[in-house]
C-alpha cells in the first residue's frame, strides 16, 4: 500500500487583523489551515504575545511575577516603556483594573489620562482592557476609545451585557474590538453576530472565548477554540472567522500551582520555574488550539512561548 499524505484544504479563512500604527504595527490571522499546518496551506502571520501591564501596582499578582516588575510597576508609563525597550515586547495590554468599583475605583478621567500617557510613551501596539465590570467598563472604555482615536488599538472586552456602547465607541474611533463570551461556541457566535449587526466590521473583531488555566478547565477553552476554528475553516462560517485571544496571564497567576512555595508543596518542585511553565504551557496549548493573540505576564514565559512559536512556523 503506497502512502499518500492525506492533506486537506478548507473553504474558509481566518480574517487578518492589524493593530497599532506605523512601523511597529502588528498583524495576526490570515491562515487558511488549522494552527501550524503550514504543510497544507497558507499561514502568513505568526501569533503575537502582548505583555500585560496595569494602571495600578500589581499588588494582587503573586510574588514570583510581581517582583519581575519591581521598580517600574508603580507607574504605567515606566512599566510600558520597560516592556517595549528592555523586554522587547511586540505589543502591550494595558488593563485598567484599578477602575473596578471594588478595587481602587479610579475615575474615568484617571483612566483616560493613563491610557493617553501610555500611548504617548510607546510605539508598539496597545491593547486596552477594562476591569471586567460590565457597567464601569462601559463608561471607561468609551472614554478611552475616544482618547485613543486613530491609534488602531484593540479595545476590550465587549460582553453581552455591554457590547452596544463599547462597540459603537470602538467603531467611531477606528479601533479593533475584543468580543468575549463564556466558554460556549454558540454564545461566541451570537455575540459576533450582534456586534456586526450594529454595523461593526466583522474583520475588525477578535474573539475571546474566555481563557482558563492549565489544570483548571483548560480543556474547555481548548475545545471551544478548536471548534470555532473548525467552523471557520470547514464550514466557512463568516461569523467565526475572527482571530482568537487567549487572556492567559490573568487566569494562570491565580491558581495554586503558580503561587505555592516549594516548601509547602515539595512534590511540585521549584516554584519560580513552575509558575513560568504554567503560564507558558497554558499559552502553548491554546496556540495549538487556534489562539493568535495572547496576553501574558511573565517575560520568561513569553520568551519560552516565542521560542516554541519559532519552532512551529
Amino acid at each position, binding site marked *: 500500500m503506497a*502512502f499518500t499524505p492525506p492533506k486537506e484544504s478548507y473553504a474558509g479563512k481566518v480574517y487578518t487583523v492589524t493593530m497599532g500604527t506605523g512601523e511597529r504595527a502588528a498583524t495576526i490571522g490570515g491562515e487558511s489551515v488549522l494552527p501550524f499546518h503550514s504543510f497544507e496551506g497558507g499561514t502568513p502571520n505568526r501569533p503575537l504575545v502582548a505583555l500585560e501591564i496595569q494602571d495600578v501596582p500589581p499588588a494582587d499578582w503573586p510574588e514570583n511575577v510581581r517582583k519581575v516588575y519591581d521598580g517600574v510597576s508603580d507607574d504605567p508609563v515606566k512599566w510600558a516603556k520597560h516592556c517595549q525597550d528592555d523586554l522587547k515586547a511586540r505589543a502591550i495590554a494595558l488593563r485598567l483594573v484599578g477602575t473596578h468599583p471594588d478595587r481602587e475605583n479610579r475615575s474615568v478621567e484617571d483612566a483616560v489620562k493613563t491610557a493617553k500617557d501610555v500611548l504617548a510613551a510607546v510605539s508598539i501596539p496597545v491593547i486596552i482592557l477594562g476591569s*471586567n465590570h460590565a457597567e464601569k467598563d462601559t463608561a471607561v472604555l468609551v472614554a478611552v476609545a475616544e482618547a485613543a482615536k486613530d491609534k488602531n488599538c484593540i479595545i476590550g472586552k465587549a460582553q453581552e451585557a455591554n457590547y452596544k456602547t463599547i462597540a459603537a465607541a470602538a467603531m467611531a474611533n477606528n479601533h479593533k474590538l475584543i468580543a468575549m463570551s463564556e466558554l460556549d461556541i454558540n454564545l461566541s457566535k451570537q455575540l459576533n453576530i450582534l456586534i456586526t449587526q450594529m454595523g461593526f466590521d466583522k474583520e475588525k473583531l477578535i474573539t475571546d472565548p474566555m481563557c482558563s488555566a492549565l489544570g483548571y478547565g483548560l480543556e474547555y477553552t481548548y475545545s471551544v477554540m478548536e471548534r470555532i476554528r473548525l467552523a471557520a475553516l470547514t464550514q466557512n462560517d463568516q461569523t467565526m472567522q475572527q482571530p482568537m485571544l487567549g487572556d492567559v496571564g490573568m487566569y494562570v497567576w491565580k491558581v495554586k500551582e503558580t503561587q505555592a512555595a516549594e516548601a509547602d508543596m515539595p512534590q511540585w518542585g521549584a516554584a519560580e520555574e513552575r509558575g513560568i511553565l504554567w503560564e507558558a504551557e497554558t499559552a*502553548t496549548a491554546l496556540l495549538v488550539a487556534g489562539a493568535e493573540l495572547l496576553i501574558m505576564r511573565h517575560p520568561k514565559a513569553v520568551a519560552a512561548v516565542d521560542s516554541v512559536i519559532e519552532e512551529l512556523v
Partner: protein
Amino acid sequence: MALSGVEIFKLLPKTNCKKCGHPTCLAFAMKLAQRQATLDLCPDVSEEAKKKLGEASAPPIRPITLGAGDKAVKMGEETVLFRHDKKFVNPCAFAIEVKDTQSEADIESVCAQVMHSEIDRVGQKLRIDAIVITNESGDAGKLETAAKTVAAKAAGVAVIINTTNAQAAEAAVKLFAGSHPVVYGANASNLDAMASVAKAHKAILGIAASGLEELSELTEKAKGLGVEDIVMDSGARKAKEIIEHNTLIRRAAIKKGFKPLGYPVINFIQRGDSMHEALVASVCVAKYSSIVVLSSIEKWKSVALFALRQNIYTDPQVPMQVEQKIYKIGEPKADSPFFITTNFSLTYFIVSGEIENSKVPCRLAVMDSEGLSVLTAWAAGKFTATKIAQFINDSGIDQEVSAKELIIPGYVAILSGAIEEKLPGWKITVGPREANAIPAFLKARG
C-alpha cells in the same frame, strides 16, 4: 477501513438465532459497526467472515501495552482527531532518556527520580511512565551494563531500548523478559535482525524512519516478518514537523483506514533548554503522540505536563467533577463565611478562585450533583433543599462553625425558605448569582 452495519450484515449467518443476545443479525451488525459488540458473541460465524470482519473491526490504531504489571501503559486505540468529538483514549506516556555513556551513579539518580515521580492530581495517580536506555557508546557491553542498572534500580518501570545494533538490543532486552519493552532503532538496514529480536523476546518493535513514506514501507515489512506490535518514529524532531507528521499519521489511520500507519507514535524531543523542551512536549501531548521522550524530568516540569495530559485526555462528554466535601479556603475561623455550590469542576474552580481573590477566609461546601452546574443541577433535582440539608447534617460541620449561616448561590434563591425549614437553627443567606460578584459580596459583609 471500517465496514458499515449493512456490509457486516452480509457476512453474518442471517439466521436471527438471537444467541448473541440481539434480536436479529442486522441489529447485531449495527452494534458491531458502532463497536458496541464483539464478533465472538456469534457462535455460528464462518471462518472467512471472521477473518474479514476481524481485519475490518480492528481499531484503526493498534492497541499495544508498554511494560507490564501495575505500571503498564496502554497505547493506541484512538478513534478521533479532535477531543470534542470523542474522548482521547489512552494518555501518552512520558519517558526519560538515560545514555550508556553516563556514569552508573547518574543513571541510578534518574531511576530514583522516576521511582519518586508519582503525584496525585484530581484523584489520579500520575508518574513518569518509561525509561529510554540509549546505546550512545555504540558498545553492546555498555548498553547491557546500563540496562542492568535500570532493571535493578527502576524495577517495574517500562523500558525502551534504543540501539541500531541488534546484538546489543538482544543482550539488553533479555533483562526485561515478560515486561513488554520496546526495542527501538529498527531501520532499513537492520530491520530483519531487529524484528527477530523483538519477536523472540515479545518486545514491541520501535521503527525509526525518515519520513512517512519510508515509515509505512518499514512497518509493512515488519508486519511481513511477523511483528505485530510496533511503535513508530517518523523522524520528526522539530515541533513543526511533529505536528505535520503526527497529524498526517492520525488522519491516514483514522480517516483512510491506512493500516501501515495504524500504530502508536513515539516522539523524541530532547532539548538543551528544559523549559523549551516542556513546551514541545505540550505540543506532542495535544497532537497525537503516544510516547514523548524527554531529557529531564524536574518536578516543576512533570507536574505541568501531567496536568496538560489530564486536561487533553478528559472525556468531553462527562463533566469533570470534584470530590464532595467542605473545602477550606485560606484559614477560616469558626465564624468565617460558609458557601455551598455544586461539584462541576468549572463551578468549583470559578467559585473557589473568586473566594481566594477576595482574600476572605471561607468554607466552601461542594455537593455531589453528578458534575452539573448550579442551575442545571437544580433543574435536574440534584441540588434540592432536602439534599442540601442532608449533606450539611451529615457533614458534621455544625461542630466546627459558630455562626450556622449558609450562603447559597443566587440562582437558587428560591430554595432558601425550604432549606431553613429542613435545617433548624441555620440561617440561609442568598449569595450572588455569578461567582465574580463574590468579592464584592464579601466586602459588603465587612
